[in-house]
């Protein structure tokens, strides 16, 4: 992780010196990060890959004006996040929840337990979708480990304290709702 960050810093400093940005280096450096950002919002690998590709197409289109970008990493994450949120309106991530939950279940478990585990994970994902939008966005973006609170705040356009508060509320609300659901069940 530290190597990735160091590379990104080097690239961002080089971008100021060069008139045009090395696109291949950008793809190699940031594609995995952008994929995770997009996947956290979409829960689909194919859709997340499309989002990453769209991000770099944007970079290609605006490569001449990218020298004015202060922090390339945060800028790319913000573009990827906004594209993923746009795509969420067209495709509903709930349709991918079943496959995603099954992929998370351990394969060595018996069938009945695996089914139960998959149901639990689907419930978590369902309750995640029912969270208020700001809280859900903070929680999904916090999944990406490379992003600190300050970067999350910059991507979401909020203050750091607000991000922390939203994250705490999101986790609390999600846990409470899941417990309520278990009690009913």
């Amino acid at each position: 992780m530290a190597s990735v960050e160091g590379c990104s810093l080097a690239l961002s400093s080089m971008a100021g010196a060069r008139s045009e940005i090395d696109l291949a280096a950008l793809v190699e450096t940031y594609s995995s990060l952008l994929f995770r950002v997009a996947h956290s919002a979409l829960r689909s690998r194919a859709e997340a890959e499309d989002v990453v590709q769209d991000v770099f197409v944007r970079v290609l289109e605006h490569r001449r004006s990218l020298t004015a970008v202060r922090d390339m990493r945060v800028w790319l994450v913000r573009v990827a996040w906004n594209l993923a949120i746009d795509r969420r309106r067209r495709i509903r991530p709930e349709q991918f929840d079943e496959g995603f939950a099954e992929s998370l279940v351990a394969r060595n478990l018996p069938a009945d337990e695996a089914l139960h585990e998959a149901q639990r994970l689907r419930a978590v994902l369902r309750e995640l979708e029912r969270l208020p939008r700001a809280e859900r966005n903070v929680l999904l973006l916090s999944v990406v480990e490379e992003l600190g609170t300050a970067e999350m705040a910059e991507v979401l356009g909020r203050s750091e304290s607000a991000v922390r508060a939203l994250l705490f509320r999101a986790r609390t609300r999600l846990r409470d709702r899941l417990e309520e659901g278990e009690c009913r069940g």
Partner: protein
Amino acid sequence: MKNSEEAIEKVLAGLRDTEALAGMEGRILNELEERAAARSRSGWRGLLPVWLFAPARPVAVGSVACGVALAGIFVVALAIPAIRRLGPAPVQARRSSAPVGSPVLGAPEAAAKSSQPASLRFGVRSAGKIKSEEGRNAESAAAGVDSDAVALEEMHAASRPAPPMPLTEQERLLLRLVHKDDPVELAMLDSKMRALQDSEDKAEFQRFFGQSTKQPAPEQSSKLRHDNRRRSKLRRANRRRNRQRQRSQERKSQIRNSQCRSNQRSNNQRRRRSLQINQPRSKQHQGQ
């Protein structure tokens, strides 16, 4: 509580640890290279709007193409009846010019002849426009035929003297003003007649003014007397005022003269006194 927390962590870890499909970077780079090459190949596309060439907008491009095709079909559908209508136009013009029967070429005919190739020159037009032009041509042709017939009739008509024109009131007055050789003026040229006229005028003058001077009317004489009295009174009053003014001026001048004299006297007295005072002193000095 523990179960839910574990489930949340598991879901978040699953989201966090998801890896991209193998070869994602290569696919993205290939796609970007293709796009860059396509851009460099078609430089003219930079002049057109970007949304036409965006990869996510094939529907827009298709709709534009469909729109262009529909517009072409619409233009062709309008053009066919317009071309058909252009055919009978000269026939109508010939029919309209036929009843005149004059050997001279009429203006509408010439206009029709000149307008016919012009319409063909412009090629395809809209049906409504052609219809309105045909209507205008027919109207102008009918009007031209009527005016030509009247002009020909007038040209072939026999020439006659102008009928006597009745004079208006203004013309009569003008004639009176301008008219000379009056019988009275002609008669004045004769010296005998003129002398007789003069004598008559003199006698009449004498008759009128002589009577007024010799025998004034009683009313007129009283008025005249009254007027004369008033005038004489006014004159007297004026004279009195003038006299009074003269007297007052004379008094003023006398006063001034007397003042001047008294001043002179006083001055003389002062001089004398001064002289009287100075004389003994001078005598004393001479004595010393």
